[in-house]
């Protein structure tokens, strides 16, 4: 329970920073931080495999991707961002606070659900592997296809139109 108490505020702070920070790169890095803390949270909750996967995928790949695209587009309009903030914040809050209210209301129902002290429960690789590849085999294949399609699609999107990948030695 203690690690939870430590981690939760950290994650929320990092998330708030990611949302609030004016400078985009800072926001992205703070996102990476939140994702890392999230992974640690999973490790704390003894979902080891998922924690490491989370760490590897999100911090290793997604954060880098986001940061990379920030590098490419180099948004420089922090000033304008700050100028416009109060108005957009108000509208943003107006829409998200009710959602929060609803969720908190639902969470309040779970006030005393679940065990107070968790029993030792962990998932081993074998269990995960077997369930993954037996009950969810089609899903895994579908995700495989999806990922390949995404890879090809992203490659196509990101390619400069019309320019074949020229390599000097081809001259």
């Amino acid at each position: 329970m203690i690690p939870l108490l430590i981690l939760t505020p950290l994650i929320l702070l990092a998330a708030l920073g990611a949302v609030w920070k004016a400078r985009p790169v800072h926001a992205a890095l703070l996102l990476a931080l939140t994702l890392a803390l999230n992974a640690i949270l999973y490790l704390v909750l003894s979902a080891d495999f998922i924690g490491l996967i989370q760490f590897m995928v999100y911090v290793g790949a997604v954060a880098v991707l986001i940061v990379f695209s920030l590098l490419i587009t180099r948004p420089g309009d922090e000033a304008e961002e700050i100028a416009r903030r109060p108005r957009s914040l108000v509208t943003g809050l107006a829409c998200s606070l009710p959602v929060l209210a609803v969720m908190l209301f639902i969470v309040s129902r779970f006030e005393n659900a679940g065990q107070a002290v968790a029993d030792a429960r962990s998932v081993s690789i074998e269990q995960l592997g077997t369930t993954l590849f037996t009950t969810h085999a089609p899903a895994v294949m579908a995700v495989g296809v999806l990922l390949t399609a995404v890879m090809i699609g992203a490659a196509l999107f990101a390619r400069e139109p019309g320019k074949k990948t020229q390599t000097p030695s081809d001259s």
Partner: protein
Amino acid sequence: MTPLAMLLTLSSLMFTLGLLAVLTRRNAILVLVGIELMLNAANINFIGFWRYGPSDPALTGPMFVLFSIAIAAAEAAVGLAIILMVFRHTRSTDLNKLDSLHG
């Protein structure tokens, strides 16, 4: 305040922050940041319920999280590719400028 309730509040707060980011951010990439936050909030829920909820031999929680991570990664990749393409086309990632599909 059981750990599960703690986790749920954490995830709802995180979801709301993500939603706020999506609604207020002007830069498309930072909207993606918001979306990642929302997805992670969901994952926290799953793991929370798996960990502190009734024992679940079928491991639906972790399964779901695994798939959601894979798909989130795919989504981020495609999203960024599109944003880059739009950027190359319109030289800006400001969402308010990309409103040509208006009514």
